[in-house]
């Protein structure tokens, strides 16, 4: 990448290149030993008669970045969308087993799905801002969840969310113009800001950078690196380098099964399973 292309606001280091990050990574304990945010137990999922997930048991540690990798159609998105019950909209679905958020079942009968989705934010593959102003996009979540009182408080929350999504400086003078006038990368960061505005604990990201150019992708990756101090992040990616760069833990899915999960560094350098190795070395997938 050309050095002149990089805006000056960009941090001088990329996460994986910083010596601090490497040291931190090698010091990571196995995921099961950490406080867990999301935990799946023997979770299986069907679209009609088509089984998409088969007995997934997986611990997502709190305030870490966990990457889901695996070939197309292996169930990564399905798993992600099972956590905030986004799949509920699809007719004919069925599941077995359970997923918990801080030990509390996501699927128990009296679960308030609205509340659940407030605690589990989601960023989609294609940025999907509302055709409204930048301000209104960020304010939407707080508004429907009645999180703030009055304009001043909302202004403050919008600014804070946009700052956290590293977008504030670029949009502060045009908050009232349409979000659709932003670039693809800016739109995606706006969607992240929008998700942050309702103060979720977990953020699910389904290939958040797959439609973006390298510069915009790098910004998103840096943002993820910043956000993990406060949020639990679960990210689906097709880009192995990206998984290696941004995540602390990586889970490898294959044909609806969880093949292996471990510290990212270990999984990429020394996978336990042959299938994992075949996938990350590019022998299939």
């Amino acid at each position, binding site marked *: 990448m050309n050095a002149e292309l990089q805006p000056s606001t960009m941090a001088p280091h990329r996460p994986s290149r910083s010596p601090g990050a490497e040291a931190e990574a090698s010091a990571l304990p196995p995921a099961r030993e950490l406080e867990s945010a999301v935990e799946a137990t023997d979770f299986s999922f069907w679209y009609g008669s088509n089984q998409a997930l088969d007995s997934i048991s997986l611990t997502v540690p709190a305030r870490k970045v966990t990457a889901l990798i695996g070939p197309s159609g292996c169930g990564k998105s399905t798993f992600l969308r099972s956590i*905030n019950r*986004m799949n509920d*909209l699809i*007719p004919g679905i069925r599941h077995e087993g359970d997923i918990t958020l801080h030990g509390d079942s996501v699927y128990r009968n009296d679960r308030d799905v*609205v*509340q659940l*989705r*407030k605690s589990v*934010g*989601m960023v*989609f593959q*294609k940025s*999907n*801002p*509302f*055709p*409204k102003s930048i301000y209104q996009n960020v304010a*939407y*979540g707080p508004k*429907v*969840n009645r999180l703030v009182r009055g304009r001043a408080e909302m202004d403050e929350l919008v600014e804070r969310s946009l700052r956290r999504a590293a977008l504030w400086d670029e949009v502060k003078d045009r908050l009232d113009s*349409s*979000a*659709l*006038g932003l670039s693809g990368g800016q739109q995606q960061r706006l*969607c992240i800001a*929008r*998700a942050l505005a*309702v103060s979720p604990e977990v953020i699910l990201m389904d290939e958040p950078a797959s439609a973006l150019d390298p510069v915009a992708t790098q910004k998103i990756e840096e943002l993820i690196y910043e956000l993990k101090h406060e949020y639990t992040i679960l990210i689906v990616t097709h880009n192995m380098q990206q998984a290696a760069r941004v995540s602390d833990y990586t889970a490898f899915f294959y044909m609806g099964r969880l093949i292996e999960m471990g510290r990212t560094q270990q999984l990429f350098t020394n996978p336990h399973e042959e299938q994992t190795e075949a996938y990350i070395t590019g022998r299939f997938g």
Partner: protein
Amino acid sequence: MANPADGGLMARLLPSRSKGNVQDQFYRLALLLFGVSIPLLFLFIVLRIGTEAWPAMEAFGWGFITGTEWNPVLREFGALPFIFGTVVSSVLALMIALPLSVGLAIFLTELAPRWLAAPIAFATELLAAIPSVVYGLWGIFVLVPWLRFTIQEPLSRHFGDVIPIFEGPAYGFSMMAGAVILSIMIIPFISAVTREVLTAVPRDQREAALALGATRWEMTWQVALPYALPGIIGGAILGLGRALGETMAITMVIGNRPDIAASLFAPGYTMASVLANEFAEATGALYLSALMEIALILFGITIVVNIFAQLLVWRVAKRGGR
């Protein structure tokens, strides 16, 4: 801009100079003729009606539009009662039909299970296939008596003295009956368009709202409906346009009396109705010309409504940033 897609309107419209493909040239020429013939036809109609209406315009001037007396025998030609009847009945019809249609469309696309939605949608669409005259007959034998005895008489008795739109005797045949029958006739159009635009709201927009903790209700009202708004406005105007021009059914129930009354229970008369009723029997050049001028006004109103609608749709679309 050097965009090959719009590389010169002329280049695309005119037959290409490459001699290679005669068939292609012929094809383009034929399409060009079809394309041009529509504006020409439009122009021809306006000109023709305009010439026919000219004697009346010369004779009455603006008095034609502001005049409230219509008495062909005394050669009094004031068209305001018809303009009033057409505009009021259509606007009332839209006010009744729009909420019902949008509600129906929301129910069908967002709430109803498929086994229920499909037959209801089909039945609604069938409404559009019923001939106008059949609506009229149903209006005479079912709607008008029902309105008269169940709605108008009690309202007139209790509120007639205080609320002008409910005053006077309940005839049944009235502005209200006209508006109601028009509204039933335009519901299929508005609800079909609304249903279509609601289904076309991208899934990612709905998911964005739900993922932020919106309920389905909030998602529908705050995200899906605003997204679909330009289309819904388009549908509403389509319905209004149809109501303005509708002739047979409303002629059969509105009472056909050229009066301007505040009461919804009083009979009225529309432009389309007077044309249908009096054209065949119009005697004398001036009488005919006066009817032609009414046709011209009706035509003008429909065009203004459609232009206004288009502007509205553009504005809403622009505000949304689309």
